[in-house]
């Protein structure tokens, strides 16, 4: 924690080494988070650059985070992708499912679990609302706490709990429905 504070302090004074350390540590995670929220690879790359540019801007103004830099970066990324998705009318909604499909191993080694994962990725894209998907990604894929998730999406903890429960229930129902349909 002290290390993070020192790192943030050095980055706030625009120290190149501290900024490079922050970028190396968080840029890949931000990129993956954006892919999981439905961004395409180019869009995720662009928004990742925008996230760090915004942080630089805040630091140069004497603002920006003083603690919990990771939450701050994810929050900035979330706001940017929400704005971007509103502009693009969610044209890349199925990119994550497609990406997951592309990254799956060849058919010979496909196991039952891989099939389930592929199905789950598709259901997450189709069945969940934007907020539900974001909460589930932050909670179970990015390992944020309820409080941190609430800060990132700008809601209280109870709202995050409700979004999480509704999202999981909808996923479970959809998975059971698809299994029964097979």
């Amino acid at each position, binding site marked *: 924690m002290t290390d993070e504070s020192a790192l943030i302090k050095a980055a706030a004074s625009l120290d190149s080494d501290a*900024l490079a350390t922050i970028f190396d540590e968080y840029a890949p995670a931000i990129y993956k988070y954006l892919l999981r929220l439905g961004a395409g690879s180019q869009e995720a*790359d662009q928004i990742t650059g925008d996230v760090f540019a915004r942080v630089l801007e805040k630091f140069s103004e004497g603002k920006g985070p003083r603690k919990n830099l990771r939450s701050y970066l994810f929050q900035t990324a979330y706001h940017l992708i929400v704005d971007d998705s509103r502009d693009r009318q969610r044209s890349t909604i199925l990119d994550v499912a497609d990406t997951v499909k592309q990254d799956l191993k060849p058919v010979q080694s496909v196991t039952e679990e891989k099939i389930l994962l592929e199905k789950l990725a598709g259901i997450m894209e189709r069945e969940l609302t934007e907020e539900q998907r974001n909460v589930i990604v932050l909670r179970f894929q990015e390992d944020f706490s309820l409080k941190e998730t609430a800060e990132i999406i700008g809601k209280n903890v109870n709202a995050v709990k409700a979004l999480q429960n509704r999202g999981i229930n909808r996923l479970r129902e959809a998975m059971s429905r698809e299994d029964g349909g097979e």
Partner: protein
Amino acid sequence: MAPRKPMSTKEITDLITKLKSETPDYPADLLAARKAAFLKQAVNISISTKGGPQGSSGGSGTAVGGGATSQGILLQALIGISVVAAMLLAAYAYRNQNPDTSQGNEVVAQENSSQPEELSSPLAPEFVVVETDSLLPSIIDPSTTATVTPGGFVDDSDPSKPSVAAAEAEKTKTNSGLHLGQTPGTPAAPGQGNPGNVNKPDKPDKPEKPKKEK
């Protein structure tokens, strides 16, 4: 084949967690390019903030800038005061030299007043040429006198009548309030138009146009 049991919440969350590993990594070339751009942007911002009056050292920079601004205002005020003082000194010196210049003006005025006769303007002073009997040819009746004005006006009148120039001189002495070159008009009769300006003559009545017969 019997339908599978509905998945529990734990199974769903486990699957979601496993799905995490399926997300592709940031391509190395894109990541390197983004990092280079980010660090370059940081260097640019650092240069601009340290070079300008704002930024991380903005407190002192702003204070220095504010001091410089107040000094500039003081300097401008001093320059303005010195310019006004210089103008006042110049005016005072000019005031001391004023008698010399006024004498020079008088000389110029005298020089100018020595040549009024050369002007052919109607504003120039009129002069009268009176031809005496000895100079007249025998054809001309000696009882007549010709008065010649510079404008070419010849007044054949009784010599006992004062000349136009003399009349003008008398009018000037009485100072009727007219401007130079303004001729007095006939005062309007009481009850007629234009009572405010007695010098301006009333316009003569326009002759009635004969109506055209259709």
